[in-house]
């Protein structure tokens, strides 16, 4: 019924989901790869390890190319807020923009220091180069903080009061640090490092499976995997805290995540399954009492159901199912990752070496893909679970959408799908060519080898 009222609503939602869902894939490496690169460069400088320097140098190239793509897709997003949701920005731009202003500062610093870092490999003294790089992790975190503050504000809006004349009064501190930020920030920041670690390590896990067993492969695997492995159990805890906080902050979202229709105690945790419009869940595996136990540590804990919200103030059946399945996927993959890291640390501590089981490296190779999937799943959980609100409890998505004709938005969507496919193809082609070039260089004898960052788009000229 909303679709009739706002013809551009459906394509606008798809477009926003498509572009955000693409951009978020660039975030983990964008924010966390500089840290891994610096750890590697540090190892190289302080242990005089030329292989570590070589790895750091190659990672810095991937970092820069990624950043260039992310800068483009991120700029698109800032325009889409205006093109697709002008009324949300017109009403709440002052509060929503606070975090983004801070993100702008982080973005500036990253852009400049990535350039200096990439271009400085040849000409800056090693320690100075390392020091210049140290600006990158805080700049990336500042950016992540800004975006998460804005997203948290959409989920638990605070710090704004509407004055009698309709103007919006802002309390900057309260609007930046809303309730959701506490858990969103830690949950996503840990996810970023975790994902980047698994993704980078997965490349070297594949190298191991292909028979490469040298210092280069071991270093490239162990550094990111160890960081990711240390964080995986932390993420399980932080995720649990986040989910529990939703029972008070966004109970409708929590009900959708658990496909809970009726408010009740002894609520089961349903794994998988689909809910029909009258609230019955099919095909799922219910674990009796578990949801109540997890939320309140007691089976008598009452969980609020979706039916307790007005139909226009809760996710639709389709949205609830999407939220639920995405949530289960994220939790499942996160748990699998935590188990994999138990295996890793067990071997490391008991045998004082890296695992040498093919199955371990197969799993480690999959962990990279799995981490990306769980980032997407987590994002779907929080965004779809917030529906129908763009600003939780204050403004509906349908009230924020543009007046542009639906055909315009559909056309833009089609154009951007094509353009993104082209960009993705370029990006992947470039990474594959770089990988092939580096492999050739590793096989060739030393001397006469190009510096990794040469001849790369947005990299120094040859």
């Amino acid at each position: 019924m909303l679709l009739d009222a706002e013809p551009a609503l459906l394509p606008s939602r798809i477009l926003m989901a498509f572009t955000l869902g693409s951009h978020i894939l660039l975030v983990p490496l964008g924010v966390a790869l500089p840290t891994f690169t610096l750890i590697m460069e540090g190892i190289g400088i302080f242990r005089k390890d030329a292989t570590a320097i070589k790895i750091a140098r190659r990672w810095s190239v991937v970092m820069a190319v990624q950043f260039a793509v992310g800068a483009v897709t991120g700029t698109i997003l800032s325009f889409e807020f205006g093109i697709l949701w002008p009324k949300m920005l017109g009403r709440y731009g002052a509060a929503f923009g606070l975090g983004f202003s801070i993100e702008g500062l982080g973005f500036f610093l990253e852009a400049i220091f990535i350039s200096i870092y990439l271009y400085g490999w040849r000409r800056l003294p090693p320690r100075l180069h390392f020091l210049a790089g140290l600006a990158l992790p805080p700049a990336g975190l500042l950016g992540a903080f800004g975006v998460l503050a804005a997203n948290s504000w959409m989920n638990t809006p605070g710090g704004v009061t509407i004055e009698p004349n309709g103007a919006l009064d802002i309390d900057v501190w309260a609007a930046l640090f809303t309730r959701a930020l506490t858990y969103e920030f830690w949950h996503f920041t840990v996810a970023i490092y975790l994902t980047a670690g698994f993704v980078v390590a997965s490349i070297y896990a594949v190298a191991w499976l292909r028979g490469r067993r040298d210092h280069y492969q071991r270093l490239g695997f162990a550094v990111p995997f160890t960081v990711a492995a240390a964080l995986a159990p932390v993420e399980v805890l932080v995720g649990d805290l986040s989910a529990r906080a939703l029972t008070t902050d966004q109970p409708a979202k929590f009900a959708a995540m658990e496909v809970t229709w009726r408010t009740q105690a002894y609520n089961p945790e349903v794994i998988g399954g689909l809910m029909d419009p009258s609230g019955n869940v099919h095909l799922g595996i219910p674990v009796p009492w578990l949801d109540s136990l997890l939320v309140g540590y007691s089976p008598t804990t009452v969980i609020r159901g979706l039916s307790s919200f007005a139909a226009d103030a809760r996710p639709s059946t389709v949205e609830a199912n999407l939220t639920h399945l995405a949530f289960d996927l994220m939790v499942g993959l996160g748990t699998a990752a935590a188990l994999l890291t138990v295996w890793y640390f067990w071997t490391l501590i008991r045998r004082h070496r890296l695992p040498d089981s093919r199955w371990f490296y197969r799993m480690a190779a999959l962990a990279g893909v799995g981490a990306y999937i769980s980032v997407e799943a987590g994002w779907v959980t929080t965004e779809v679970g917030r529906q129908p609100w763009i600003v939780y409890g204050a403004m509906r998505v349908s009230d924020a959408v543009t007046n542009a004709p639906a055909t315009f938005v559909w056309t833009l969507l089609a154009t951007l799908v094509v353009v993104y496919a082209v960009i993705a193809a370029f990006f992947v082609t470039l990474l594959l060519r770089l990988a092939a070039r580096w492999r050739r260089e590793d096989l060739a004898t030393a001397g006469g080898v190009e510096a990794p960052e040469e001849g790369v788009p947005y990299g120094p000229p040859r």
Partner: protein
Amino acid sequence: MSLSIPNLAAGTLLLAVTAYSVAGGVDFGAGIWDLIAGAGERGRRARELIDHAMAPVWEVNNVWLAFAIVVCWTAFPPLFQAAFLNLYPLFTLALIGLILRGAFFAFRHIAENPREHRAADLVFGISSVLTPFFFAACLGAIASGRVTTAGPPPSVWEVCISPMSISFGLVSVAATAWSGAMFLVGDARRAAPDLVDYFRGRALWATGILIAVGTVALAAILFERPQLLAAMFTTPALAFVLAVMVLTPAAAILIWRGIFRWYRLLTVAGVGSLVVAWGFAQAPYLLPGRLTIDQAASSQPALILVLAVAAAVVLVVGPAFGLLVYLDQRTALESPES
């Protein structure tokens, strides 16, 4: 105008737009010369120099744009809403140009055969013309007074397509080509001395075209919104209008006489004055005749945060960016053998 907090925030927005026009403009201009460099050996050499000159600072320029957008919606939400409700076709075209430009600039580094390379050059070049055109057309449409705050217009096209939006777009293309050529003269002097005269000639041609197009734009303003033209010829905007009229030929004369000093500074000041002149002429209105700075401004604390971030950009990012440009211009970031 008083130094009230809303005015300072508006000044921040204007400075961000100016910074993007100056820094991004040089980049877009290089892309325009890339497009018309021709296919032969000389064209290839010119393209190589353009690549060489653009690569290090490309990403940083885009940041100014994102920053301007965020400052706009945070400090002046009603302006942002009205601009996008009325001008979404122009913003969309500019945006698509921007994406294609970035993607195909990267692609020409990985293109392996000449046909791919030619296609990448073409898309990159054309989008380098379209992007500054449509961005400036948005400003022209705003300056023309056609953008309203009361919901969507009956016909978006009547708002988007007007003598002023088109002429602002053309001035922007001419100004970016001009500043691009000016900076390429400097880049050629460092990296490809045989191309100095090539870009000098183009810079001089571009000066003539910019002056001609600028005159046409003044006529368009006179035709469509004479109040704005009157404001441009009263203080404080007048100072910047005069600056444009003096600095543009001055920079050209330096280049013409082969005096390779100050010309880049004059170029930056010329393009910057052009944007600032428009801003001051339109003040105190964000949307001429409809929405003033004070009416559109967010509540004080939000504006103060924006100003604090802007101050941090100046204090922290300024020196860092200066370092990057210094290293870039001094070729300290490249190997001596390249």
